[in-house]
């Protein structure tokens, strides 16, 4: 079965989704990512979805749950490069992905994660306050 590769860069894990997500793939990704965070002690997860054209409620929910699991393991999730059409679809589906940070592109996403890294423990709204709830 296909698996989505997870890259490790410093204390950040990077996932780029370049194929159409199907349910099995999403479940596998969650599992792999969780195991990887636990193994490497990563502090940040960057999911790049600029190639993702189709989302449904299940994929949306998987993204939320990946973020929630990562947070339990003390890693922040940033979703980068969402397409306008995907954003509209998610909002229309009522999935506003609360609790997940978003960034326009990978560069900004990495900046967001980096800004948080040096301050161990201070994870509540150190930057860009008030928008993540």
């Amino acid at each position: 079965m296909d698996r989505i590769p997870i890259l490790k860069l410093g204390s950040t894990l990077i996932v780029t989704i370049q194929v159409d997500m199907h349910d099995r793939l999403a479940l596998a990704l969650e599992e792999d990512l969780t195991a990887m965070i636990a193994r490497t002690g990563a502090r940040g997860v960057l999911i790049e979805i600029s190639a993702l054209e189709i989302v449904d409620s299940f994929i949306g929910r998987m993204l939320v749950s990946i973020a929630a699991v990562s947070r339990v393991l003390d890693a922040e999730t940033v979703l980068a490069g969402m397409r306008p059409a995907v954003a509209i679809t998610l909002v229309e589906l009522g999935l506003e992905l609360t609790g997940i940070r978003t960034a326009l592109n990978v560069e900004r996403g990495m900046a967001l994660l980096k800004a948080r890294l040096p301050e161990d423990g201070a994870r509540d709204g150190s930057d860009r306050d008030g928008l993540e709830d």
Partner: protein
Amino acid sequence: MPMDGAEVLKRTLTEDEAAILEAWSISLREGTSLQSGRIREAELQTQAKAVFGQLRDGLSSGGVDADAESYTPLRENLADISRSRAIQGFTPTDTANFVFSLKEPIFEALRRRSAADASALAAGVWAAGKVLDRLGLLTMEVFLASREEVIGRQGQEIAELSTPVVRLWDGILALPLIGTLDSARTGVVMENLLQAIVDEEAEIAIIDITGVPTVDTLVAQHLLKTVAAARLMGADCIVSGIRPQIAQTMVHLGVELNVISKATLADAFALALRRTGRKVVRQQAAEERR
């Protein structure tokens, strides 16, 4: 029917053309369309003469069925007249009266010709009534269709005009909303904004609702949707320009906008600049400090 109404009508129209046209033009002159100054008398007379001629032609081969092929030139001419009146802003009454005011002169002429023959008179009146009513209805249909076309076009123009996305600074966009937000417009607004966020690589989008007359639960929901979609793209939204009365109404209605909001666009812009690590200073003061 002992007497052919179409035949009676045709004969009357041919033989009494001058008298009928004269009476019709008098009645048109008295009508309100001339007094409103939207059309000149000469133009009205020309139209009347053309319509009369076409009516006679239609009648001579098509009987009293105004939908018949022989009436096609007349129908097209009337449609043109009606369309131009709709655009010029005539009232529906004025437009319909153009045709209906022909009734009286024709009835009068019929009465003069067939006063002795009651059945011929009745048949002629019935034929004239049938044709003119159908033509009157046709003018109304075209009138309404043209009006709707105008309204539709205006609606489209307003929608296009009222959803601009403005670039205020590097990475700061403003979306001044004007007019009521319904779901169709929200869709357009959202698409424009998100596309602009991608194109400009914007970090912050300011949604200014100074021009939104009322904010009810539905509008608030549309706003929140737009904000949520922008957030998913990785841009923050600031809502600005909520007028005092609207703020009160919103609180009384229990509408909650869980977004950053500022009273004016200027405040929102200042916040956006601060967020992106910029500051506006007065030049003089900055020089003195050196």
